[in-house]
């Protein structure tokens, strides 16, 4: 990786010149908003955390929501509406069996997923590289009933590509991770940037477009097929 803080680098934002530009930029905004206020606070003073603009209610207790049968039913219904193939299963073992049958039926040569998600049943076909795999598998960190979304966080094990690059993708979703609304997930996210993964993706159905003469087509750049296994118990 190139050192992004080399002197000639336009990305060296912490340099003296850059910070002058930055102060001028922010000062221009400040003057427009409060023309009569005294000049800017001393440089390098830490920015006071600005309060949230919304009166944020306390996060819902996930456990209380998890076993709400209607939340799960709504999630399954919304997935169907998005054209997702969904199976409700009792356990992780059943979800694995379902996937093994699908892989055999489709004669998929490879399954791209994180090493810690792999099991004996697919080990022969397992790959870490998403690029040429016909199928990618991820475990959903959350799901949203209202929108039929699965939410996936990137990590050292979980590549972004597993849910994006192959033409077909699948997700294992534990029922207790299904929350009613998008807002519930937003409130469950860490409030510090450093505690967030580099990528959190809400995925609602297959990749789609209506850019060609308003004709709806699925499978544009992302996957055209999405499979979800909802597991009553993990």
């Amino acid at each position, binding site marked *: 990786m190139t050192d992004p803080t080399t002197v000639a680098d336009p990305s060296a934002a912490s340099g003296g010149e850059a910070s002058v530009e930055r102060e001028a930029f922010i000062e221009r905004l400040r003057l427009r908003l409060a023309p009569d206020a005294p000049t800017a606070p001393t440089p390098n003073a830490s920015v006071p955390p600005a309060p949230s603009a919304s009166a944020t209610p306390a996060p819902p207790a996930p456990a209380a929501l998890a076993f709400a049968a209607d939340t799960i039913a709504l999630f399954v219904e919304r997935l169907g509406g998005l054209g997702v193939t969904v199976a409700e299963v009792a356990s992780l073992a059943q979800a694995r069996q379902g996937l093994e049958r699908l892989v055999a039926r489709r004669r998929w040569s490879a399954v791209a997923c994180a090493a810690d998600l792999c099991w004996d049943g697919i080990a022969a076909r397992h790959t870490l590289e998403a690029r040429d795999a016909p199928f990618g598998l991820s475990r959903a960190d959350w799901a949203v009933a209202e929108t039929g979304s699965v939410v996936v966080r990137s990590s050292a094990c979980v590549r972004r590509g597993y849910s994006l690059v192959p033409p077909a993708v699948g997700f294992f979703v534990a029922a207790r991770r299904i929350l009613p609304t*998008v*807002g519930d997930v937003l409130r469950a996210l860490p409030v510090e940037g450093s505690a967030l993964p580099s*990528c959190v993706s809400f995925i609602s159905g297959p*990749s789609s477009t209506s850019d060609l003469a308003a004709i709806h087509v699925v499978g544009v750049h992302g996957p055209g097929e999405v499979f979800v296994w909802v597991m009553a118990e993990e």
Partner: protein
Amino acid sequence: MAGVSAASRRQASAESGGSTNAASRRQSSAASRRAFDERAERALGDPALQQVLRAGQDYVQALSVAARAAPDWPLALDEVARVRGATLARLDRYVEEFASNVEKVGGHVFFAADAAEARRHVVDLAELRGVRLVVKSKSMVTEEIGLNPVLEAAGIEVVETDLGEFIVQLAGERPFHILKPAIHLPLDRIRALFSKAAGRDVGGDAHAMTRYARDTLRDKFFAADMGISGANFGVAATGSVVLVTNEGNGRMVTTLPRTHVVVMGVERLVPTFPDLEAILKVLPRAGVGLRATTYVTALTGPRRAGEADGPEELHVVIVDNGRSRMLGSKYEQVLSCIRCGACLDVCPVYRKIGGHAYDAVYTGPIGAVFSPLLDGLACHAELPFASSLCGACTEVCSARIPLAELIRELREDAVEQGLVAPAWGAGFDGFAAVARRPRLWGALETVALPLLRLMTAVGAPLRGRGPLGAWTRDREFPAPQRGSFRALWARGPARRDGPDDRGGPLGRERGRG
């Protein structure tokens, strides 16, 4: 594009150092108005385009009608407006917080006061990294700053990867609509563009054409050295960039190339993730009638240690380019826009003239306000007049921006700055003078009413002629009622009852196109 383009007007205005006198300003704005009329005429005379525009608006309205009927819809719009307003009110602090949090997670921030600074920074960065191929996901602000031509001039290949943007790039055109850039092009035209690029016939089926675009662009994603995206939103508390997309190209652009550059308008911040709740609810429903777009992606810094994909470097270019001038002004609310496109999809003027007639990056009602404020009213003096002031845009606006009111404010500014024909001001002054003098009004009424009756009786031969020519060409002039309002009023309440509507105050529009 024929006539005086906005770009050349901007240049002319810059070269003259803004010191042009009122007469020449008026002259140049009269010329640009004529050019606008020509573009509008061309659109009106294109039956295929008229069909596309009608179908496009009707389609989106049919899709979003259920969402708009939901009982909690007005509350959601109120919440969007509140979050956006609260953010703008302390934008200086949120920008500072956002920037320092981007840096905390390993990203770089550049503050661009204007388009030139933003362009130069991105091109310098691309050259420094030896970039030869840039893939882009849809971004209005990169259109606004004119990024692509500058990258191309530096010998860098730039590929738009949003399907609609890819099509307009092949066609050498500007996006037609904020959300649907190529909605104006019929399938056979797209087939011709794709076939020419492919060197073979790609077929006439939408699925086959999509397959061609997917295959072509997939190679580009993997080969690109740099990905450039916009930002639907930035989250101040975490330094995250949020992208809202359907095709998946946004995720490709921000995952595969080793350098990711975000170009965003300074106003596109929210304080925290929970503040996005109402916005993420309203945006897809208002824009395309969906509960959610396929992808909402929150990116926080470049890839972390140990991660196997994602960009190694993240650069965020925060662009002012005239936005700070709007802050604290009577136009501040226009910065609340979440770019849902709903105002374009209800506007009766957009329905007739389409996006290209505006000759601006931002079109439709939001463009009629935002474009003159960005580029200077002298560059787009005709845009505030490209409105019937019917208020449909205000009614649907996801962020409760009073668009029609702002359009009217801009008309006032245009008159004050001497950008419209003196007859405009004189006409309103004349009306005001008469309306303040009841006797004069009454006297004129006795002359004007028989004249109007005569005019409507003669009908067709007068259409399109005389001082009201432009108006009567496309409309039936309403026949005046028997007796004036004042005469009816004088007769007392008993005789005033009962509707007597003959065409309404604005007349009936004749079907056209």
